[in-house]
């Protein structure tokens, strides 16, 4: 994996600013009708440079998948900016948006649901190329074979249907489809969570190879921290719709500055049974996104919570080397472990 070149002055490939997605919920209790807002994504900033893999991690329900889909505008964001190569995707309508989708793509978690069961593999992988007029119908068989070879599948599979393949193979097909138009950025929405452990490494290796040969950037959405550490240059940790810590993988994993990140890391079981880790597991449940706590959104479960946490929302403060954390005690508690 290439070392991130987040050098000052380089233009980011993707820049997300203040991304919000709110869902309106109507609740009726007797005669009273209450309109409430579910703040699924509550002001996310994210930057991805060319050739970089950025991890987006968090518990299920923290809004990471919603954020990924909102970036693609599969879910219409409520507010915020999504700059891809300097162009705001949110300003695009109709045909212009469709054209922009040549450069950004997605691989889904469930390889069984992501492929149309009625289409042959060759039609599935070449569909984006045809949609963008990049090839003609006559080129479909040839191009499909090439794409399948690229993702390590036999070219003969082109004339088969999705139901004939295993989960790992289907995920390869999904990846072949995602790289078909030669995009700059692929959003990987938990691409290996649904796969067998034995297949996961193969898919990760494939993704790394493709990144090297095609100069791809990834936004890797996951809840499995060990995988993220393995593949990502930088990591953003999400909690309740917002990013609470962000920085180079090594720094985040070795010296986490947000108590939430620390708790997540402590929850990873050690591979060596002799090592008895001293675990401080989080107490309580994730609060409802209908009712995000005032001040710091993590304070109700935080071991460090103090008076200031209730009154003031902590900003993402820079520590060192692009490592930032949204905690009032980020700087002083860093080495207190």
């Amino acid at each position, binding site marked *: 994996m290439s070392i991130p070149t987040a050098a000052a002055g380089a233009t980011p490939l993707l820049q997300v600013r203040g991304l919000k997605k709110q869902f309106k919920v109507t609740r009726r209790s007797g005669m009273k009708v209450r309109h409430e807002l579910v703040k699924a994504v509550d002001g996310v900033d994210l930057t991805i440079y060319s050739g970089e893999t950025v991890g987006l991690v968090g518990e299920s329900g923290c809004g990471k998948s919603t954020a990924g889909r909102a970036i693609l505008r599969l879910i219409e964001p409520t507010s915020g900016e999504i700059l891809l190569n300097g162009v705001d995707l949110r300003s695009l309508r109709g045909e212009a*948006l469709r054209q922009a989708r040549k450069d950004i793509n997605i691989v*889904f978690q469930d390889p069984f649901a992501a492929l149309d*069961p009625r289409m042959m593999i060759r039609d599935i992988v070449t569909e984006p190329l045809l949609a963008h007029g990049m090839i003609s119908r006559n080129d479909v068989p040839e191009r499909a074979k090439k794409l399948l070879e690229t993702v*390590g599948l036999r070219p003969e599979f082109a004339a088969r*249907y999705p139901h*004939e393949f295993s989960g790992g*193979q289907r995920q390869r097909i999904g990846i072949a489809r995602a790289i078909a138009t030669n995009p700059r950025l692929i959003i990987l929405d938990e691409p290996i969570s649904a796969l067998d452990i034995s297949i996961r490494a*193969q898919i990760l290796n*494939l993704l790394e190879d493709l990144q090297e040969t095609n100069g791809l950037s990834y936004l890797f959405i996951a809840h499995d921290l060990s995988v993220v550490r393995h593949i990502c240059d930088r990591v953003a940790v999400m909690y309740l719709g917002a990013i609470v810590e962000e920085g180079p993988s090594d720094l985040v994993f070795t010296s986490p500055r947000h108590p939430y990140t620390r708790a997540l890391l402590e929850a990873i079981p050690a591979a060596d049974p002799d090592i008895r880790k001293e675990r401080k597991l989080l107490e309580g449940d994730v609060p409802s996104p209908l009712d995000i706590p005032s001040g710091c959104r993590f304070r109700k479960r935080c071991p460090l919570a103090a008076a200031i946490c209730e009154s003031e929302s902590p900003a993402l403060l820079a520590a060192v080397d692009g490592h930032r954390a949204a905690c009032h005690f980020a700087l002083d508690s860093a080495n207190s472990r």
Partner: protein
Amino acid sequence: MTTTSATTPPDYIEDDQAPSETPWQLAWRQLRKNKAAIAGLITLICLYGCAILANFLSPYRMELRSDQVFQPPSPIRFHNADGGFSLRPYTTQLKFNPSDNAFHEVAGTLEPVHFLVTGEPYRLLGILPLRIHLFGAPDHIPFHLLGTDSDGRDVFSRLLIGSQISLSIGIIAICITFSIGLTVGGIAGYWGGRVDSVIMRICEVIMSVPQFYLLIALAGLLPAKIDPRLTFLMIIIILSFVGWAGLARVVRGISLSVRELEYVQAARALGVPEGRIIRRHILPGAFTYASVAATLSIPGYILAESGLSFLGLGIKIPFPSWGNMLSAAQDLDVIQTKVWMLCPAAMIFITVLAFNFLGDGLRDALDPKLRR
């Protein structure tokens, strides 16, 4: 394994010689496993085949009256006048005896039934002029396989001609409701929001009126003396008008869920144009489910037509339909002593059952979850 990629060890499937099955072949294979569904399918093919060949199969014209009123089915014997076994069936004349109020065989009238005989002229499928019939007895012997009705008309012939009306009404009505339901339900499901609310409220209004009452009210509006072919058409229109709302609701639900499927989301993310997404992903996805719903609702139309005709609001005599034939079997005396008059009921029962078996089988065969 010859074409192994150098970078990653691919997880190939072992039996690469196995021929690839299309989803349709797969569904067919699933369907074939279901014995009830196959029995239903074969039954339906036979029924519709008979309906198409009705004129050829029926020995008499459907409106031909005779003085043999309520004659029971003609006896069929497999022996000739000498008592020797014969593969060719023989029949005898039945004559009404007023003294004991019953039909009796007339001795010495044993005559052979001939096959592929020349008889009344007709047009097969309304085009091909023919005179040939599958079977027939000599002219002086009345041969009624399923007896005669109150006007001495041949029940077997009327059953066959009636099946043309009763069976086609379901198919034509479902074609109309299917296209309305697919369009309206598709629009409601795909656009959602206010369009959806308005369309669904209209559907609910139509569905909230008791169906059979609505049918009777509409059929009652038909003028009494109109061309029977027009009646047929009007009945189909009435049935479709009442039936589309239910199907539209089903299709709306289907397209709502298909729209959110990941492969549709993926196509959208890939920049596939909206029209192409609807055509290539949403409609085929919705179509399989909707066609199951359609198959299962055909019996409803057949029953509704029978019901209307039974009440005298549908197809009018002398034109036969299973419903109006059954209306002759209303009183207890007929049911007790003239059992052959209940044949249309048996046909309706068999048809409805066959459609339901087939529909259930199709639903299982087309369910992608069962394939994994």
